[in-house]
C-alpha cells in the first residue's frame, strides 16, 4: 500500500524567488516517485522521477527534488521562480510493478507566481 501527501494546497511566491513544494510519501516498497506539472486545461507533463539511482533528481525547467528516506519526503524546489511556472503540481508514488499498480496521486499544489 502507498500514499502521498502534498502538504500545501496553494503556494504563492514572487517572481525570481525560490520555490518549495512539499511532498511526503508512505510505501510498503522501495518507491518510485514522480512530480508532474499541469498547466490550465492541459495534460500532465513529467518534471522529474526518482527511482533509487540518486537521491537528488534534476528535472526540466530548472526543477529538482531530493529523496529523503529518513523523512519520507520528496520535496520539489527551484532556485528562481518564473511566471511560466504558475500551474498545478502533483506528487505521485508507485510501487515496483508500474503497469499492474495504480499510480497514487497527491491532491495537488497550485503554484501562483506574483509579478
Amino acid at each position: 500500500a502507498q500514499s502521498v501527501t502534498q502538504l500545501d494546497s496553494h503556494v504563492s511566491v514572487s517572481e525570481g524567488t525560490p520555490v518549495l513544494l512539499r511532498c511526503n510519501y508512505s510505501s510498503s516498497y522501495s518507491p518510485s516517485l514522480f512530480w508532474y506539472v499541469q498547466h490550465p486545461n492541459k495534460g500532465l507533463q513529467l518534471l522529474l522521477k526518482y527511482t533509487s539511482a540518486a537521491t537528488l533528481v534534476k528535472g526540466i525547467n530548472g526543477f529538482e527534488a531530493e529523496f529523503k528516506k529518513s523523512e519520507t519526503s520528496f520535496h520539489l524546489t527551484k532556485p528562481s521562480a518564473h511566471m511560466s511556472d504558475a500551474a498545478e503540481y502533483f506528487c505521485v508514488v508507485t510501487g515496483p510493478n508500474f503497469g499492474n499498480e495504480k499510480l497514487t496521486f497527491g491532491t495537488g499544489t497550485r503554484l501562483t507566481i506574483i509579478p
Partner: protein
Amino acid sequence: DTEVTQTPKHLVMGMTNKKSLKCEQHMGHRAMYWYKQKAKKPPELMFVYSYEKLSINESVPSRFSPECPNSSLLNLHLHALQPEDSALYLCASSQDPYGSSTNEKLFFGSGTQLSVL
C-alpha cells in the same frame, strides 16, 4: 514522436447522446490508460489496457465503454452520461505494462474537456 494525441479537445453532449473520445500514440507503447479529472482534483484512473487487452477497470459505470482497436489507438465510447460526468478526460501511455517502475513513466495527452448538459 513523443506525443499522446487526444481528440476532440472539447465536447458538449446531451444526456441522450452517444459520442466517442479518441487517443493515439505512435511511441510503440503497449499500455494505455484513461483517467478522469474533476476540477481542482487529481486524476482518477478509469481503465488500463495492456497489450490491447483490458487489464484494469476501476469499477467504472457501463455508460463508459473503452475500446483498444490496435496498439496505437484507444477509444472511450460515451452513452447516456450524467451531468456529474463532466470532467477533463485524460489519456496516457507507457512503454511496458509489466515493466519495472525504474524504467517506466506515463506520457499524458492534453485531454478532452467534456461537458454533459
